[in-house]
């Protein structure tokens, strides 16, 4: 199998914190690997090592066959990197930022202008091209950041939490841009704390927690590890939540998790659902939502670690703090 990215036994220690505790990764060319984990799991540290920004304490990694330690310059000429925070110059305009990167990559003045113009059109930033980046919205900034990492047409792209902090609309826009890149043959390593994001973009998912790989496989394989299904119920009226909770607990034999007005409980026997429906009907409770679905990645994480994966800290950058 032709690998674009390979890592073996990566270890990184920051003071007393072991950010990476022996990570192995393998990303076949032209595929998307989703590195999934909560804040502080070690995702950003892994990407920084692969992008040559950080040296591992132990282990080895290759990008496009080049060793990240001994052939760092060769690695840098093959990759694009989009960080967790938009790493573009806020005082420069969108166009100037792209021209700057192009010039640094050795484009002639004319080619740099042309490439910047191309990317601005492609990423829907043409109208804002002459404005300083500090006036951009979060979504525009992230699009420009992605464009900046694509100036040299890298075949391998690292996206470190590309949609963290974006509104749903901007997130979908970015997803579509990423899908287009993948369709053109780009290999992508994506870190995310959004299960939905890994599910929708990645061919293969590696779940990491506290610097270790705790599971890997396709989205379906991971879900299959949980077996079972989840019953989701949301009563139309919030006042009915308590009654619905006791009905479901009684029938399923396990107390559901309450998330706002929505109840969630794993069920092993689908035949329980009609019983729930009957009892709800008898109690005069109208359900706004009543579904039986396959396990989500959050369920996978919960099963593997006993914790939810989607817990976000407000700062969002607690990861890898020394």
């Amino acid at each position, binding site marked *: 199998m032709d690998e674009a990215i390979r890592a073996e036994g990566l270890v990184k220690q*920051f003071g007393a914190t072991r950010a990476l505790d022996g990570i192995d990764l393998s990303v076949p060319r032209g595929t998307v690997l989703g590195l999934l984990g909560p804040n502080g799991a070690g995702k950003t540290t892994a990407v*920084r090592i692969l*992008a*040559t*920004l*950080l*040296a591992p304490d132990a282990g080895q990694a290759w990008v496009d066959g080049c060793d990240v330690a001994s052939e760092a*310059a060769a690695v*840098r*000429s093959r*990759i694009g*990197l989009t*960080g*967790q*925070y*938009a*790493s*573009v*110059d*806020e*005082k*420069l305009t969108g166009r*100037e930022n792209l021209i*700057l*990167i192009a*010039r*640094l*990559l*050795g484009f002639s003045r004319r080619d740099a202008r042309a490439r910047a113009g191309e990317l601005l059109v492609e990423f829907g930033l043409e109208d804002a091209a002459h404005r*300083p980046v*500090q006036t951009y919205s979060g979504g525009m900034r992230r699009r420009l950041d992605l464009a*900046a990492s694509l100036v040299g047409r890298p075949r391998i792209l690292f996206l470190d939490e590309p949609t963290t902090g974006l509104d749903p609309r901007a997130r979908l826009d970015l997803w579509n841009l990423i899908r287009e890149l993948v369709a053109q043959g780009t290999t992508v390593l994506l870190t995310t704390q959004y299960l939905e994001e890994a599910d929708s973009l990645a061919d293969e998912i590696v779940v990491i927690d506290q610097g270790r790989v705790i599971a890997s496989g396709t989205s379906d394989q991971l879900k299959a590890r949980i077996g079972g299904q989840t019953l989701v119920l949301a009563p139309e009226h919030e006042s009915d939540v308590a009654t619905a909770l006791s009905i479901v607990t009684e029938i399923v034999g396990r107390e559901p998790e309450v998330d706002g007005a929505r109840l969630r409980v794993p069920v092993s026997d689908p035949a329980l659902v009609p019983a729930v429906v009957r009892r709800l009907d008898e109690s005069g409770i109208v359900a706004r939502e009543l579904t039986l679905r396959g396990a989500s990645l959050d369920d996978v994480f919960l099963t593997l670690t006993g914790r939810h994966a989607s817990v976000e800290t407000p700062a969002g950058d607690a990861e*890898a*703090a*020394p």
Partner: protein
Amino acid sequence: MSSLQQTLTLAWRSLLQLRRNPWELMDFSIQPILFLLLFLYVFGGAVAGSTAAYLDFILPGVIVMNLVFVTVYVGHGLNTDLTRGVFDRFRALPIARWSPLAGRILADMVKQAWCVLLLLVVGFLLGFRLGAPVSGVLVMLALLLVFAFAMSWIMVLVGVVARDPEHVQLFGFTALFPVTFLSNVFVPLDTLPPFIRAVVAANPVSLLAEASRGLLSGGPVLEPALWSLVWAGVITLVFAPLSLWALNRRLARS
């Protein structure tokens, strides 16, 4: 693209930022002019008997004082790049490792040269005339830039250590005010009480100001100029390795 071109491109980028940051432009264009005018017309009569006589004395002094303050922008800009992730973007590019730092310092040299020339022009408008050969202006500019380069290394360290750009500015000005005022920039050395005279005489700001006065108006040049260069050499020898060590340490810890 050679590493020199990369450095020039990155310096161009730093200068481009000025257009979007009128405060910085004000800081090192209007502020020194304001200083010059205020000191000239408020203290001129008291210190030198007349503003015309004081101008010869204060103009080189304000040029040196401003030079020292403008170096803060090296640290400010570097810290902004580090905290905003721009520095990481550059590090992930196949360019020379030292070019982002070199680009910033080079851009600073351009700003410094601009300030010196601006103040000279304003000085001429106020009636200042050269009392020494024109070549002295060029020698002064070279001397000042060498010292600014050395100072840049101190500011690189401040930029690396500081939590955010605001702290760079705060530290920069708090530390630099006493350094520039404990000098002969505003008043002649022999008017000072003996116990601070030694400090003031050894201050590189005094030495630079004295050398600049000599180069513009005539007077001793060689000795203060050489001592200024010794200062610049010592500062560079101490702070360049220290700053690079601190920078690498910071980069390895996140």
